[in-house]
């Protein structure tokens, strides 16, 4: 039951490849129409500059249809999104890594909010960024926050094989193998399960 929570464009070709690779659910930015035996839901990633902007953006999104992820740029937005029930995941990218401190993770743990990381970020990170990413992710894992991995694929060729992705996380970020597997299976699927999507 592999799930990718961050696919940019769900073209029919991508869905076909996803089914062949063993994915059962995808969350897509564009074309969330489904097909090829893969359950597809919509995805919105919000990167608000302020708390007001986040509140306005959240008010416009219909409840229960799309996976809502917030990539916060400041601490206030990060804290708010951690306890807002409309937000499904909080995205840690290379740009907003400073926002994620111990207090943020404590809030996320309290409200059961998963941390979302993208493989595309890991691939383009330099050694300095990767080191910071490594420390943050491991802090989240130690605090028992569910980590969700998305590929960030905009094309079928960027969709990773699940086993390769598990090994990539294990070796690059020292994920325990079980956690790496959970970040691709049960954690993201529990987010997708509550949404109304199209199944192919």
């Amino acid at each position, binding site marked *: 039951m592999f799930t990718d929570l961050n696919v940019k464009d769900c073209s029919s070709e991508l869905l076909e490849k996803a089914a062949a690779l063993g994915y059962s659910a995808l969350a897509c930015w564009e074309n969330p129409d489904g097909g090829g035996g893969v359950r597809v839901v919509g995805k919105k990633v919000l990167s608000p500059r302020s708390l007001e902007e986040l509140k306005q953006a959240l008010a416009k999104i219909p409840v229960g249809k799309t996976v809502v992820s917030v990539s916060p740029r400041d601490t206030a937005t990060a804290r708010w999104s951690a306890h807002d029930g409309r937000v499904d995941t909080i995205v840690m990218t290379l740009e907003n890594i400073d926002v994620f401190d111990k207090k943020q993770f404590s809030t996320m743990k309290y409200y059961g909010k998963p941390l979302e990381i993208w493989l595309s970020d890991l*691939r383009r990170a330099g050694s300095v960024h990767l080191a910071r990413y490594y420390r943050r992710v491991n802090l989240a894992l130690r605090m028992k926050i569910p980590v969700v991995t998305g590929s960030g694929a905009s094309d*079928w*060729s960027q*969709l990773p*094989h699940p086993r*390769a992705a598990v090994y990539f996380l294990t*070796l*690059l970020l020292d994920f325990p193998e079980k956690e790496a597997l959970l970040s691709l299976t049960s954690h993201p699927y529990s987010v997708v399960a509550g949404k109304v999507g199209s199944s192919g």
Partner: protein
Amino acid sequence: MADQLVAILMVLVAAQATVLAATVYFLRKVRRVLRVWKTLVEKERGKPSKPRKRYVVFTLACSGNPSREVIEKHVENAFTTYYGKAVLAKASPQLIFMDEAVRKGVYRVSHLYVKHLISLFTIPLETGECKCLIIPLKTTGTLKKALKIIERER
């Protein structure tokens, strides 16, 4: 009388064959247990384990038709970028078989670095107009078995 003798002989031969088969089976099991035990003891003493070869069978999902050299270069570059030259040297990944017609191949790598190799299959191969996804199929201990898998999927 003669019939009885033949029957007894047949029973004896069958019994002996069974005993022989059981002995071979048992010895194989014992040998395997001893090998595992030896490895554990060596690990305990800090002795480096003997590097064994593993054969990773993969298939390509491509929009173009990449050559063998392109794939070799891609894997080598990815290895150096993510794990460094030292790991590349120790792992020594080699593309030992590539069937460009069916887009399947076999990579040979040290058993300690199989996961490193497979993890690099997440890096998409993009050269010009050709886009490729490398999909690992199976890891085997012998080239014969690896080739059999390719043959089966042909």
